């Protein structure tokens, strides 16, 4: 590893920057230096201010105070275009694509290769896109519109878009949150390649194996303040966690064995053409069933169909022995189902509405008195739940969209836990959640299971699947390829089934 002092001048230097939103101070007095050829990781709890820093580098937010230097020159990034012109490529935490444009145009908007008379050369555009996607091992059709891409595919397109920029500084805000191990590993390889070519990288993740596998330096933030910056090889995950959280964190995956009760949810022969085929499973009280598979295997679509948000072409869903009408989330909720969806910004929350309106949304009737609903009652209820899940927010009356990504996820969990469901379906429940809260969520899942809840969990994080599940149903291209007992399963058996080779499975 090169000595930082002998290295060329820092590619980017943030000096004592600060940013507040009204009364909320998101970042105060943080300094940060990125060097060419080095990966700098940023760690911190949800709401610590990581994304706010990223947005300052992206030209989305202007710092209230402090300075920014590029190659030693003080610079002001007025807008995203300026940041891009300065050679900064940003992968944002929440992918925002153009749903109506093709993947190719999503990648190359405003930079499309042009031919005669400045006309766009579509053939060259397609070729360039295919090449970029291939770098990440993705085989998406460049002409397909971005609408309907799964969160993971969206994230991959967002990554490809940033990588296609001819940048010297890459800023990556939780690029792997929605990815499974394979894709994450491929991204890591690409990042190393970028470094070898002399790029500086700022990398944010809540997954410590990624941070320690990639980073040369690690900066820890807490409550918007700078805590420490050290070379990675002088740190251990435990020290980082302690600096992030300021306390010790309970064990991840504290699954306590329970004795399963009666079957509550029974799914037989569920089929939706083009998405999934003949899926059957059942879950008993106290049991955690995990749906595993590669990105795009159709897990989310299955649980959406079960909950009634999507329609299906064949099959039945029964809850506690009673068939559930298709296509009605309201009926599913009445029967005791709850679904924490994978896309919190589109499906989980109404970002423009306040935290209290969001937490109440699943229980409007129950919270009303004589048919009338008062803000006071919603607020009391929201306070109760945000405290329980340790949500960091600027007041329950602030719009949910102003919360940090992880805290938004907690609000989604809160609004569904509050319905006191009999069957809880969680689609990527810990995506973007920091390690402390993750442990908390896992503990809660165990507790709920112990109290007799049936839990269905979709997760792309293999350790989470292996650590939490009583049983694992593996999907491959919309078909069930294996059902494995949780305790006996290994990463290898699950992966084998997930890639369509269940031969190795029991």
């Amino acid at each position: 590893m090169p000595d930082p002092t002998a290295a060329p001048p820092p590619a980017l230097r943030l000096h004592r920057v600060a940013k507040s939103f009204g009364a909320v101070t998101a970042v105060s007095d943080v300094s940060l230096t990125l060097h060419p050829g080095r990966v700098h990781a940023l760690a911190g709890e949800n709401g610590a201010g990581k994304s706010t820093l990223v947005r300052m580098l992206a030209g989305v937010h202007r710092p209230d105070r402090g300075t920014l230097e590029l190659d030693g020159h003080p610079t002001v990034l007025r807008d995203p275009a300026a940041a891009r012109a300065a050679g900064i490529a940003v992968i944002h935490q929440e992918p925002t694509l153009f749903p109506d444009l093709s993947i190719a145009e999503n990648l190359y908007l405003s930079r499309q290769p042009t031919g005669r008379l400045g006309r766009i050369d579509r053939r060259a555009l397609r070729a360039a896109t295919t090449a970029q996607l291939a770098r990440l091992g993705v085989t998406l059709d460049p002409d397909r519109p971005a609408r309907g891409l799964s969160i993971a595919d969206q994230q991959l397109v967002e990554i490809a878009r940033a990588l296609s920029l001819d940048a010297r500084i890459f800023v990556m805000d939780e690029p792997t949150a929605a990815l499974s191990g394979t894709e994450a590993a491929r991204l890591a390889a690409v990042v190393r390649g970028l470094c070898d070519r002399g790029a500086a990288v700022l990398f944010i993740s809540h997954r410590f194996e990624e941070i320690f596998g990639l980073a040369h330096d690690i900066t820890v933030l807490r409550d918007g303040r700078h805590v420490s910056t050290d070379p990675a090889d002088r740190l251990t995950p435990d020290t980082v966690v302690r600096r992030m959280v300021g306390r010790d964190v309970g064990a991840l995956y504290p699954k306590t064995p329970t004795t399963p009760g009666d079957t509550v949810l029974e799914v037989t022969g569920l089929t939706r053409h083009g998405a999934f085929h003949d899926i059957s499973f059942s879950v008993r009280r106290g049991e955690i069933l995990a749906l595993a598979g590669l990105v795009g295997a159709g897990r989310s679509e299955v649980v959406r169909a079960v909950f009634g948000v999507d329609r299906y072409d064949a099959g039945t869903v029964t809850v506690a022995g009673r068939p559930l009408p298709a296509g009605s989330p309201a009926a599913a909720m009445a029967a005791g189902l709850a679904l924490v969806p994978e896309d919190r910004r589109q499906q989980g929350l109404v970002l423009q509405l306040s935290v209290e309106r969001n937490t109440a949304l699943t229980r409007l009737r129950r919270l009303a008195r004589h048919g009338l609903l008062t803000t006071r009652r919603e607020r009391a209820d929201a306070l109760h739940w945000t405290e329980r899940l340790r949500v960091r927010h600027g007041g329950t009356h602030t719009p949910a969209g102003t919360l940090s990504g992880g805290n938004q996820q907690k609000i989604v969990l809160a609004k569904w836990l509050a319905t006191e469901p009999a069957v809880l379906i969680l689609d990527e429940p810990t995506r973007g959640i920091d390690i402390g809260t993750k442990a908390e969520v896992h503990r809660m899942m165990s507790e709920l299971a112990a109290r007799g809840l049936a839990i269905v969990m979709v997760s792309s994080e293999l350790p989470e699947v292996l650590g939490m599940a009583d049983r694992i149903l593996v999907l491959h291209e919309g078909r069930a390829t294996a059902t494995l007992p949780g305790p006996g399963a290994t990463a290898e058996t699950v992966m084998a089934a997930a890639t369509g080779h269940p031969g190795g499975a029991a």
Partner: protein
Amino acid sequence: MTRAHPRELGVLAALLLLIAGTAAANPRFLSAQSVRDLLLSAAILTVLAAGQTVVVLTRNIDLSVGSVLGLAAFGTADLLATHPGTPLPLAALAGITIGALCGALNGALISYGGVPALVITLGTLYVLRGAAHSWAAGRQINAADLPRPFLDLGTATVLGIPLLALLATAVVLAVALWLHSYRSGRELYAIGSEPAAAARAGVPAGRRIRTAFLLSGSLAGLAGVLYAARYGTVDATAGQGMELQVVAAVVVGGVAIFGGSGSVTGAALGALLLTCIGSSLAVLRVDPFWQQAVVGALILAAIGLDRLLTTRLAARAARTAPEVSRAG
């Protein structure tokens, strides 16, 4: 695939169906004069629809086009009536300039104010119409007040095709080329498809939106000039209520009302379809009391048919090729 444009095919199918049906009942519907008339009638609406498409693509709307048309038509006619010596290109330029100014006003209010276009242009719909009335003060400019060559523009043909129709086609082709093959054109789609993403991608949304309104205004101005040339009788009410027709044409033509998708050729087909509906009803001598009801029903049928075709195609794609989305 984005290559084939199923939405435009839907409108085209509806159009052909209508023409075939009408021609079957009255073959003279396809006579040369009749087709010429149809193209002439559609020309003004098509020009307006082209401008509207550009605006709607950016997730905005321009409801003021009818009023802009009125103002430009009256302005041009007034200029020619009071200064009979004015060269025609100059008069046309004056009309287009009036439209461009109105469009620039709309665009500036919307982009600098960051406020919804529907409200602003509903406001300018009233304001500009009021301005036209104040200007005209009940005056009417008649064919006799206008120079003969100007009026001839409204009926002139080139190789048997009406000049106005050629002009409208040229406008549509130019706008289509821009939207399809130029970076700035594609950025309009991006802005309409997801404004937040456009902001992140560094698209100069404000400037593009101002351009879109400027174009829509200028084309409404041009439409005003064409209106004056074609009808020869202009007062301050010219183009009143036209905005709903234009929006209907654009929507029927498959342009998503919330931006991001659709094409100007589709909108032009929509304009042609709407005009055709009007002409067929006249030719078929449908009971006048029924005409408006039939127009409404046909609009509903057209957008319904379009939706049906789109979902059918999407469903077929999903069923026959479940892996199409990931195919390399």
